[in-house]
């Protein structure tokens, strides 16, 4: 890619094979302004896309585009909200309704849902096209769902998509170096990079101001506003994936390629504190005797801070930066693990293997609660805030809901395991087929990754050559919290949270299988005499130091 092309973020072209032909033609902007005029929107879409191709590409121009796009979206939402009354009136009416009902004062928001109104109806048979023309789906939702991009013109295979923690920004990464941070609501690019380098993964950091990209030799951090390179993390040698722990401000990665299969000390999970830049731990993956295999994929357990990695030996490792070895290993699949996901509340985890089995795990009992077979090995997994499981294989996206309840609730772990049909290796026994909540096929290109958009009933799907947004009712957290990252946070609150995040950064030592770290330490402090405590702490520090030193020495050899 010698010369920098224009923006590759073009709306998805009308695809004759597309299951949603009507919506395929509407891009975000057109969809926002004229959701009910789909027939007329094709022209508008072509116009808008042409304009964007010319304008976007460099950040200054993208900014201009942003402002114009923003204006239009605003108009669209205003018209959507109007419906005979002004937005303010509607708000007042809503407030009145809320006051009327005491219960609704306490629960002012409720999540979405999709329920059959007849016993013979199946939610899984409802296509996106049919869902979006449903009368109770409003225009704003249609416009959001219509945010789709055709990325075919960049002639590369897209490998990653990620939303920021607030759900405000979207990050797309192509294998040949096209990385774009997008304000998807306004349908405007924030930063677009053509890296001329191999890209394996990309993720936002603690807010949508910075993102990290796993490139051929190292991990890089970029500014999402200007697109400027902020930092190079050379200690992350040829990272295969990136995972970010938002409360600990740790960026983790494991090496890709030949190194990932060696017993070398450099074959480790590298943890870097992005606030200080120092490597706080590098537990070794390639320890002889562990037989984990290469760490192919990873997911963060936000509640405990542990990292779940899927290995080529069918094992899932659970890691902490302060332990030299995995805290736990789950022998989950008979073939290599292809995808892992952890529920945001830290209670459930899902794994998928090359044996085309998907397994769901209860992280409190460490039991497999369910395992089922797919038609092909799953390429990506994600669990939404409400517990909806999304998985993708070839060019199909399947969504599962309530798959934990059957085996987990009110049952002993043994009984749960018995019902699930297997204990131990997930491939050993596969339970009865589970009916998916929703199914969507995106013919043409295999799906690379599925990611739920925080606080929205939306699922972002990156295929090798396009980005699509699917509507998944009931997937998003309905109640926003102003103290957590949220799409409507003000600049001031974002600043405050940035300072707070740095001040209240949790120490790496607090990462463990449980969150009662301070409790234990507090108890130790009370029980042990001061001297003994000091010697114990010193011994522990010395051990860690030696481990690190040993690892470094081995790397030096």
């Amino acid at each position, binding site marked *: 890619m010698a010369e920098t092309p224009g923006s590759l973020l073009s709306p998805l072209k009308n695809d004759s094979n597309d299951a949603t032909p009507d919506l395929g033609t509407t891009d975000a902007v057109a969809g926002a302004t004229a959701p009910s005029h789909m027939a007329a929107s094709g022209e508008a879409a072509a116009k808008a896309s042409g304009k964007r191709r010319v304008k976007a590409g460099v950040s200054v121009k993208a900014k201009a585009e942003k402002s114009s796009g923003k204006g239009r979206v605003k108009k669209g*939402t205003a018209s959507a*909200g109007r419906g005979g009354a002004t*937005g303010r009136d509607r*708000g007042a009416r*809503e407030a009145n309704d809320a006051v009327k009902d005491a219960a609704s004062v306490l629960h002012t928001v*409720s*999540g*979405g*849902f*999709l*329920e*059959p*109104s007849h016993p013979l*109806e199946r*939610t899984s048979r409802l296509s996106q096209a049919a*869902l979006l023309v*449903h009368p*109770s*789906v*409003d225009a*704003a*939702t249609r416009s959001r769902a219509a945010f789709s991009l055709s990325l075919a013109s960049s002639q590369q295979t897209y490998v990653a998509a990620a939303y920021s923690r607030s759900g405000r920004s979207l990050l797309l990464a192509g294998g040949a170096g096209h990385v774009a941070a997008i304000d998807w*609501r306004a349908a405007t690019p924030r930063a677009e990079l053509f890296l001329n380098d191999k890209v394996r993964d990309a993720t936002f950091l603690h807010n949508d101001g910075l993102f990290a990209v796993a490139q051929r030799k190292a991990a890089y951090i970029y500014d999402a506003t200007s697109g400027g390179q902020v930092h190079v993390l050379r200690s992350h040698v040829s990272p295969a994936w990136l995972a970010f722990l938002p*409360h600990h401000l740790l960026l983790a990665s494991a090496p890709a390629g030949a190194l990932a299969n060696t017993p070398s000390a450099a074959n480790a999970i590298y943890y870097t504190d992005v606030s200080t830049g120092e490597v706080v731990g590098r537990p070794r993956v390639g320890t002889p005797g562990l037989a984990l295999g290469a760490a192919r994929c990873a997911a963060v357990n*936000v*509640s*405990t*801070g542990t990292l779940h990695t899927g290995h080529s030996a069918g094992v899932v490792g659970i890691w902490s930066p302060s332990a030299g070895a995995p805290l736990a290993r789950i022998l989950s699949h008979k073939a290599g693990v292809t995808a892992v996901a952890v529920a*945001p*509340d*830290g209670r459930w985890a899902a794994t998928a293997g090359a044996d085309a089995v998907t397994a769901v795990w209860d992280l409190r009992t460490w039991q497999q609660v369910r395992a089922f077979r797919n038609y092909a090995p799953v390429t990506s997994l994600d669990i939404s*805030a409400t517990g909806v499981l999304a998985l993708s294989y070839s060019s199909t996206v399947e969504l599962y809901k309530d798959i934990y309840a059957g085996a987990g609730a009110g049952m002993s772990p043994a009984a749960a395991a018995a019902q699930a049909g297997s204990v131990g290796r997930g491939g050993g026994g596969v339970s009865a087929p589970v009916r998916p909540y929703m199914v969507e096929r995106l013919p043409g290109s295999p799906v690379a990754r599925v990611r739920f958009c925080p606080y*929205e*009933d939306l699922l972002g799907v990156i295929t090798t050559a396009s980005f699509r947004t699917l*509507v998944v*009712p009931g997937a*998003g*957290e309905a*109640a*926003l*919290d*102003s103290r*957590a990252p949220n799409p*409507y946070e*003000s600049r001031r609150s974002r600043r405050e949270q940035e300072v707070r995040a740095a*001040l*209240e*950064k*949790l*120490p790496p030592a*607090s990462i463990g299988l449980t*969150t*009662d*770290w*301070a409790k234990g*330490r*507090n108890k130790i*402090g009370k029980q042990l005499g001061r001297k003994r*405590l*000091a010697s114990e702490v010193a011994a522990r520090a010395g051990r860690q130091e030696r481990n690190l030193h040993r690892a470094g020495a081995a790397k030096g050899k």
Partner: protein
Amino acid sequence: MKVKVLSRSDASWNGTTDGAGAVRRTGRNPAPHLHPPLRPLEAVRALNAAKVGRMLARPFLFSLEPGHVDGVYGLARSRTTTSLVASASADGELKLWHLPSQRSIAVRTPLPRAFIRDVAFSCDSSRVLAVSDAKLVYAMRVAADGDTLQARAGPVEGVGGVHGGEETPAGASAAVGGEMSYLASAPLSAIDAHYKRPVFATASDAVEVWDETRSEPIQRLTWGVDSLHTVSWNPVEQDLLASAASDRSVTLYDIRERTPLRKLVMALRANTVAWNPMEAFNFTIGCDDGNCYSFDMRLLGGFSGDKAARPVTAGTRRSRDVKEPAVRARTVHKDHVGAVMSVSYSPTGREFASGSYDRTVRLWDAQASRSKEVYHTRRMQKVFSVLYSGDGRYVLSGSDDSDVRVWKADAARPIKPLLPPEQAALNSASALVERYSALPDVRRIAKKRHVPKPVKAAQLMRAEIAANEERKHRNVVANSGKGKAPKRKSVKERSIVTTLE
């Protein structure tokens, strides 16, 4: 199919965009996946709070200017207003201070070069009473608002030529509204006023109780000792009185009875006695050995309903098989390395301050055996008097360098009026530090106090002495026959020689 999809109105969340009045909506959702794990987060917050607390700790406020020219031995606060404080110094100067303005509003020298040992506000706080070596109780009138003042220094017959307030000529006391000074039979060393009645008590060769309207003591309480140096009324149980004497004793009196109640003999002399203003039965003494001891007077024997501890009166005999329970201090407060000269309770009764010969002021939780704060400056000399302010927010210290210093009772808390959120933030910070105080990092930061080099050296020496004693005891135990090793008294009993009744 029934469908509902989340769809928020951006406008309602972003606020109206048509001007400066845009108010964003806020939401709260306690779901755990939106927030960091609580316990590690709290531990980190506790550590931050401890750090910030130490960074903001600026305990010294100011010293009262113009000050005395000799060591300050007496400090007293008004019982009706928090703004008035009286101080007295060794050169015979008595000063009344208005704390909010940091000004001295009256200066009197009743008898030049007559060492004023102690000072107190009278029961209704209308007068300041000062006692000196010149056998004189000097009364200075204080107007209710504290602004207009008049001193009345009346010579009593036989004294003659008292140099009092400028407006009052010598020998005119009887002429001015019956105001009196009181002539005692011996040099006076301490004074305290009753909390309800116009009565005060002085300490000299005996405890004498005076009626403010009479020139002679109405009661004289003695118990075989001729040199008392402190006296203190109980603020709750108002007929009770405690004093300490040079025979190392602390004596309790009830003025409704003819004889003193009880005498506690310590190993070393008690310099001061302070009653807990909220717990009528608890008092704390400051001792020459550098410790403060808190006692529950009910456990000194003779007061509880316990048969064994019932008072021995004529006609009853204690049965021999019932053993008298050992008299012990409730708490031993060990941190000073020099004699404790003064103790003053906070009005809440939950903290007290102590001033010591080791040139430091320490603040204590009333139940704690270790101090929570130590205040010192490079120039502060031996501290003879400390005083908690009436609102419990300040501590005053009077020392040998002739300064009266004003300190914050809570070093890290700002003295300005706090907004409710600021108040809440400070409260939660201190609660967090308290809750995670056993975490090594938190404890290290929160407890660390710099002390002057001589104090540090003395602390090390004391620790070594204690360790040697401990080792010696272990050796004695190891070399005694089984069951023959002498039993070692607890720290709470060790300094108590005996109790008498």
